């Protein structure tokens, strides 16, 4: 079976001003269907860079980044955009569009995918119900708490049946009680609906809740642990 995500000797070098910074120095990683993987590491370990590459937001300097067996480096702009539609992003700062309501934010991904408005509305309501926000769906982000915004972001990420959820510090900006609720939601999605989840975090406690932990340090995978 083809791994959903496979990184082979993945390298990424940034230019910070004129100084080249090696963010990834040869990462090897495999994520199978149904996995719940935590990428754990301190800041500067390259985990966010890895996340961007897995999410097809960026291209590697060298090495291979395969999503469902397709090398991301070989794709053009349009193909990358198509690929991103099949990936469910959840950003650290939620990244909701402030002028849209919760429902409209969830609908946006579907609208980008060209889905008609009636279908969008129904799916968005179903997804917001899944994340427990049906009552608040007509509120704008600034009327929602951090946890609620994160749920909206998760609902938006679940649109279009993504191949996997990609999460950047999913509990980084919410209190611990809400964080536990979110984690519960993620576990449920993973166990009941079989959603593959890859999350990046520096929080060991959170990482321990996943099925598998990849420890990163200085742009390399330093170790792997199955919970």
């Amino acid at each position: 079976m083809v791994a959903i995500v496979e990184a082979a000797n993945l390298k990424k070098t940034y230019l910070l001003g004129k100084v080249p910074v090696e963010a990834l120095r040869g990462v090897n990683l495999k994520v199978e269907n149904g996995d719940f993987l935590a990428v754990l590491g301190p800041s500067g370990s390259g985990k966010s860079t890895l996340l961007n590459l897995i999410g097809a937001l960026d291209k590697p300097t060298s090495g291979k980044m395969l999503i469902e067996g397709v090398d991301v480096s070989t794709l053009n702009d349009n193909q990358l955009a198509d690929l991103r539609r099949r990936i469910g992003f959840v950003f650290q700062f939620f990244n909701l569009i402030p002028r849209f309501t919760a429902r409209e934010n969830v609908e946006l991904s579907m609208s980008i995918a060209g889905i008609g408005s009636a279908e969008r509305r129904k799916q968005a309501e179903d997804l917001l119900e899944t994340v427990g926000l049906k009552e608040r769906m007509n509120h704008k982000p600034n009327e929602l708490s951090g946890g609620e915004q994160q749920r909206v972001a998760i609902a938006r990420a679940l649109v279009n049946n993504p191949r996997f959820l990609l999460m950047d510090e999913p509990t980084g900006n919410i209190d611990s009680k809400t964080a536990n609720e979110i984690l519960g939601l993620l576990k449920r999605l993973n166990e009941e609906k079989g959603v593959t989840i890859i999350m990046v975090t520096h929080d060991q406690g959170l990482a321990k809740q996943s099925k598998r932990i990849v420890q990163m340090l200085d742009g390399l995978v330093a170790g792997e642990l199955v919970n």
Partner: protein
Amino acid sequence: MKLGDVFSYSFSAIKLRKLRAGLTTLGVVIGIAAIVALLSITQGLQDTITRELQTGFATDTLIVSSGRGAGLSAMGGGDSGFKLFVNDTQTINEIENVSMSLAIIQRVGYVQFGGKNRTVAIVGVDFVEYASIYSSTFVAESGAVPLNPENDTVVVGKRVSDPWKNETLFCNVNDGVEILWTNGTARPPKNETYAGHVAAVLQEVGGFGIGPSDSYIYIPLSKAESFFGTDECDMIIVKLVNDDTATIDSTSKAIRDAFDKQISVTSATAVLSILSNVFSVIQLFLSGIAAISLLVAGIGIMNIMIVSLMERTREIGILKALGMKSRTVLTVFLGESAIIGLMGAAIGIALGWVLANVVALVFHGGGIFFGNQATGVGGISITPVLTPTVFLGALIFGVGVSVIFALYPAWRASKLKPVEALRYE
């Protein structure tokens, strides 16, 4: 992403910054309104003048006057020293395609009635022939234009009878008026005068032309010859058998040849075509000036779109992370400017139309151009004309300028890299 969704997304972004979008739109509104107002007024003016000329200047007539100059010089008189005489009509009448010709002797003089004095142009014509050429304008409103006029018969224009347009008449049918002319060639200059009898007041002609005018008085040609002491005429009006271009051209040439090219022959169609050319140039010039203001509006749009692009860099990053294609981002931004352009053009066309009508009203009421009581022509009425070409042109131009100036910011937005855009604070 469906086009409808793209536009609805663009519109949501515009709604977010209403004041800013409003001010940007205002730039387009002003530019388009200026273009529409100027074009519809000049078009209206051209239509009015053309219509006036066509009524007062029958299209199947030629104007023969002394002087070799071509075209409009006929109106100003020639300068060759060659003179036209009343009996030159006999020569002209023998030329092919000429159905009749009539001589006109014209002087500036005065009419006196009840102790009051008015400056008028005194025109000596054969009433019957004149009425047959200008059958729609040389028509009596009260009284009747006599077929066999007495020597003292006078026919007056509407503005001579009713100069103040308020029914306070200067003179009326059956009044006896004193007609005065100063013979400036006599030494010492001599005032000629005779008592006339008003047989008819003409109906209002309006505007201007070579034909009958509201501010003229008409006396029989024979009386004019004796009163002005000359058989030299100012112009000869030639009526042709039809108004085909070929007839006009060949007859014009034949008449010129008959007088050894010492005279000028002007046709109504030639004057109209010159006029139409002049108006085209004026329209082009005016719309050029108005277009500059639209250009400034375009730069405003570009400026605003660049600011908007910077503010929304992160949003663009989100959209791209959610799978929006670069060309869709481009369309979103172009859509915003197209909406601004469309709104601006629509409001601008409406505003320009209102403006044109207001200006026309001022023209009509005040008679800015021709309201001078001394000439007594009266206010000219302009009906602004908004042609479909101007309407569509303004719409396309407004949207076009907006979209063109948004191309660069939209292109920059579409080229943003998702990772960098998401990191943008």
